[in-house]
C-alpha cells in the first residue's frame, strides 16, 4: 500500500537497533527489569514525591513574599522554635519557617540540579562529540583541558569560582557546572570512541552521510544512555555540592529557600543548650532529611537506570 519513492536521492538510513531495545519490545521489558528491583521502585517513588512537592509548592506552602523563594519569617528573635501550630516543622534562626523552606527548597534543588546537568550535558555533547568523533590533536586538546579541570578538587574549585563571581544561586550553578562538565565530556568521548568504528556508523559513512547527521542520528542515540545514568546518579551529588556552597555562605543568600541554607542557619544551634544537645534538633534534622531523601532517591533511581540501560550488564540479570 505504501508507495515507495524509488528515485529519492536521500539515503534511507535505517534506524539502528538501540542496545536497550530488543526484539522483545523495549519499554515493556525495561519496565519489568525496573520493577524487579524493589529499591528501584523506592527510588522512583521518592523522586516522584519530590517532583510532586516541587510542582505543588505554591499550594503546599503559600508564598507571602514577593519572591516566593524567600522564606517568610515573623520577627527577628534568634532562638529557633520547635514544631507547633503554624509552623509544622518549627522555625530556624531568625524565625524562618522550616516547612516553607523545605517545600520551596525542593524547587531550588531541582532547578539547581537540572540546570547543572543540562549545562554539563550540553557542553559534553559538543566537546565530547567533536573530541571522540574526530580524534587527533583536537581530541588531545579537549582531553588535556578536562584533565586540568579534573586535577582540582571539585568543591574547592567551585568555592573559588563562586568567590570570584560573587554569591548568588546562578553563580553557584555556573560553578558546579564548571566542575561537572569534564566527567560528562570524558564519558561521552569514550562512548564515541567505542561506537564510531561500529559497522552501522561505517555503513552510514559509506552511504555518504554527513558528520553532523551521523553524530546526531547514529552515534549520540547510542552513546547517550551512560550519560543519563551518570546524570541521574549525579543529581543528588549536585544538590549536596550546592548545599555545601550554601552552608559556606557562597550559594543561596540567607533566607532563600534552600536546604543547604537552612542547615547553615542551624549551625549555631547544633550543639543545643546546656545538658541537652538535642534542644534544636529540628533545625538540622528537617533540612537534613530532605537532602538525605533527595540524594537517596536519585542514587537508587540512578542505579536502576544503570541496571536497565547499561548494555554491559544485560546478560547479568
Amino acid at each position, binding site marked *: 500500500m505504501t508507495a515507495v519513492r524509488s528515485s529519492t536521492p536521500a539515503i534511507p538510513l535505517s534506524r539502528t537497533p538501540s542496545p536497550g531495545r530488543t526484539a522483545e519490545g523495549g519499554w515493556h521489558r525495561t519496565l519489568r527489569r525496573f520493577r524487579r528491583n524493589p529499591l528501584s521502585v523506592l527510588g522512583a517513588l521518592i523522586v516522584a514525591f519530590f517532583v510532586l512537592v516541587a510542582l505543588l509548592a505554591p499550594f503546599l506552602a503559600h508564598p507571602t513574599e514577593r519572591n516566593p523563594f524567600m522564606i517568610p519569617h515573623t520577627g*527577628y528573635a534568634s532562638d529557633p522554635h520547635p514544631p507547633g501550630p503554624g509552623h509544622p516543622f518549627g522555625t530556624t534562626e531568625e524565625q524562618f519557617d522550616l516547612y516553607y523552606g523545605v517545600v520551596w527548597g525542593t524547587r531550588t534543588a531541582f532547578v539547581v540540579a537540572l540546570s547543572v546537568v543540562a549545562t554539563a550535558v550540553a557542553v559534553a555533547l559538543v566537546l565530547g562529540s567533536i573530541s571522540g568523533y574526530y580524534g587527533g590533536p583536537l581530541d588531545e586538546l579537549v582531553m588535556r583541558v578536562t584533565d586540568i579541570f579534573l586535577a582540582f578538587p571539585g568543591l574547592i574549585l567551585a568555592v573559588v569560582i563562586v568567590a570570584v563571581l560573587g554569591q548568588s544561586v546562578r553563580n553557584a550553578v555556573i560553578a558546579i557546572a564548571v566542575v561537572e562538565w569534564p566527567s560528562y565530556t570524558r564519558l561521552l568521548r569514550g562512548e564515541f570512541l567505542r561506537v564510531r568504528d561500529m559497522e552501522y556508523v561505517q555503513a552510514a559513512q559509506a552511504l555518504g552521510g554527513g558528520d553532523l547527521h551521523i553524530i546526531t542520528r547514529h552515534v549520540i542515540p547510542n552513546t547517550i544512555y551512560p550519560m543519563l545514568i551518570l546524570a541521574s546518579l549525579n543529581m543528588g551529588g549536585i544538590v549536596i555540592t550546592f548545599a555545601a556552597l550554601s552552608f559556606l555562605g557562597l550559594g543561596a543568600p540567607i533566607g532563600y529557600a534552600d536546604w543547604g541554607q537552612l542547615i547553615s542557619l542551624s549551625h*549555631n544551634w547544633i*550543639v543545643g543548650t546546656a545538658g541537652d544537645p538535642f534542644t534544636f534538633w529540628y533545625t538540622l534534622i528537617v533540612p537534613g532529611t530532605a537532602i538525605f531523601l533527595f540524594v537517596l532517591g536519585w542514587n537508587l533511581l540512578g542505579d536502576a537506570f544503570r541496571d536497565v540501560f547499561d548494555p554491559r550488564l544485560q546478560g547479568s540479570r
Partner: protein
Amino acid sequence: MRTVTWIKRAAVLAVTVAVITSLGAPTVRGAGEAVKNPDTFVELQFGDVVSLDPALAYDIYSSEPIWPNVYETLIMYSGSSLDKFQPMLATEVPSLANRLISADGLTYTFPIRKGVHFHDGSVMTPGDAVYSIRRFLLQDQAGGPAWLLLSPLLGVDSTRDDSGKIQIAFADVARAVSAQGDNVVFRLKKPFAPFLTIVAAWTFVMPRAWAVAHGDWDGDPGTWQRYNNPKTEDRYAFDHMNGTGPFTLERWDRQAKEVTLARHDGYWRRPASLQRVVVRSVPEFATRRLALQQGDADLVVASLNQRSQLLGLPGTVVQDNLPQIAVQTLQFNFKINTEANPDVGSGRLDGGGIPSDFFADVHVRRGFAYAFDYAGNLGGAYAGKGVIPHGPIVQGLLGFDPTVPVYTTSREKAVAEFKEAMGGKLWETGFKFTIPYTAGNTARQTGAQIVKDTVGALNPKFQIEFRPVPSSTLISLLLAHKGTMYFLGWFADYPDPHDFAQPFLSANGYFPVRSGYRNPEADRLVDAAVGTADPAKRKALYKQLSMISYNDLPCLFLIQPVTYYTMRSWVHGWYYNPIFWGQYFYTLSKR
C-alpha cells in the same frame, strides 16, 4: 563505583551519631575537678587585631591586649569605678588637695615611678613617658585616637587642618607635655574636668630608645612631620610591643587571628598569676561554646542573641547585664569609594548599584531610618537587653536627654522619603548594594537582615545584600571609605559626652572621617561644649548637638546594649569596668 560511597556514607553517619551522642553525655566539671591548663587563660571572641601600636589602635579588639595588659598608663581607673583612680606609672593621682593639679586647673603633675622595667629590661624614665605621649599626639593617623589628648592639651582635634596641612607647632606640644625632674607635667589649653579619665586610659608608655632603634620617630622637633599620619603597618610598633605591663607579647599570629601574651616576670608589682594568655578570634559561635563547655576556653565573648545557649552550662558562670557606656549604630557613608568595591554593584544609579554619593542624600538616609524595625532589632539582635538611644549622648552621661526625638518605624514615611530621594528618581530606578558586617557578630547579622527585609519590602527594586568580613578587614575597609552602610559600635574612651559628640559629629571625629559627614555648626558646638565648664550650659549645648544629629541623620543610633561574658567557674579575680575594652588579665587566676 557507588558501593564504596555507600559504605563511606554509613561510616560518616555512624561517626556523626556517636559524636552527637557523646555531646549529650554529662560533662559536669564542677567543684573538685581539676582545672584545665591552670597557667594558661584562653579567651575566644569574634574580632581580631588591626594593630598593636598603642598610638594607632582604635578598636576594641586591638585595644584589649594593649591596655592595660601590655602597655600601662600613668594612672588607672580603680577597680570598677569610673571616677576613682589608682597610681600606676605615676606614684600619685593628681588632685587639687595634693597640689599636683594647679589651682587654675590647667597644670597636671605626675611624679613618675622609679624602678619600673620595660619588657626589654630597660628602666622607664620620665623621658620615655613624655616621648610616648608626644608620639601619641603627633603620629595622629587620620581617624585615630590622637584627638583624645590633642583636644584638651592643644585645643584642636587633629594635627592637620581640613586641607591636610600641619596646623600645630612642636613648641606647643613640648609645652603641653614635658618632663620636669622626676615628673611629667601636662599643661591644658582650658580647664577640662574629665582630663584624668583620659590620662587613666590613654597615656601608654613605651621606651624611646627601643622605638628609635627600630626606625620610629626619635623625638626630634624637626622630624616628627615625617612620621605624621602613617599607614597602619608603617611602624615597628605595629606588630611588636614593649611596655611595662604584667604581660609581654609572645606572638601575634595574623593568620590564625590569635594573640599570645606571656607573663612579665620583672613586673613592677607582684607578677601575674597566669603564665600565658591566648586571645583568639573564633567567628563560629558553636566552636566557641563547645570550647568553653570542654574547658578549653576560659572565657568567651558572644552576641546577646546567643546568650540563651550559654546560660546554665555546667561549670561556667555568666557575668550578666553588665552596663555599657556604648552605642551600636548603623552608619551611612556619604562618599563611598566605588573603585574596586564589590559592595556598590555597578557604582551608578541604574538599579544595579549605588553611586558614590548615594547616602549623601538626606532623603535616602531618612528612608532607611523610617524603614528600620527598631523593636525587632532590640528584641531579635540584642534579646531585649538594652535601650534605644536618644542621639549620640547615651544614658549615664551628662547631656543625655530623653526628650530628644528618635526615629520610629513608619512604612508610609519611609516610602515618602524614598520617593523624594535622588531628585525623585530613586523610586523608579531602584538600587542594589551590599552591607559588610563583622563575621561572627550575629547581632549585626540580624540587623543587616532587618535592613534588607524592611527596605526591600518597600519596593522590589530596592535590593540589599549583606556579607560577613573579619573585623580587621571591616576596619581597613572603612578607613579606605569603601564601607557602604555598616554596623559599628562606639565604646567610651572615657566617660564624658565629648567622647560621644566629637566622634559622631565633628569633621575630624572617628565616624565622619570614615563617612565624610560634615557640618560646620556641629564642629563649632562640639568645640564650644568641651570648652564649657558650667554643666547646665554644657548640657544645653549637647542637646543642640543631639538635635543636629536627629535632623542631619549622619547615622542611626540603634541601641545602647548591656553586655555579658561567660567564663569557667574556675576563673577568679575577674572584675568589670565599663571602660575596659576587653579583660584585664592581671587580676585573673584559675583554681
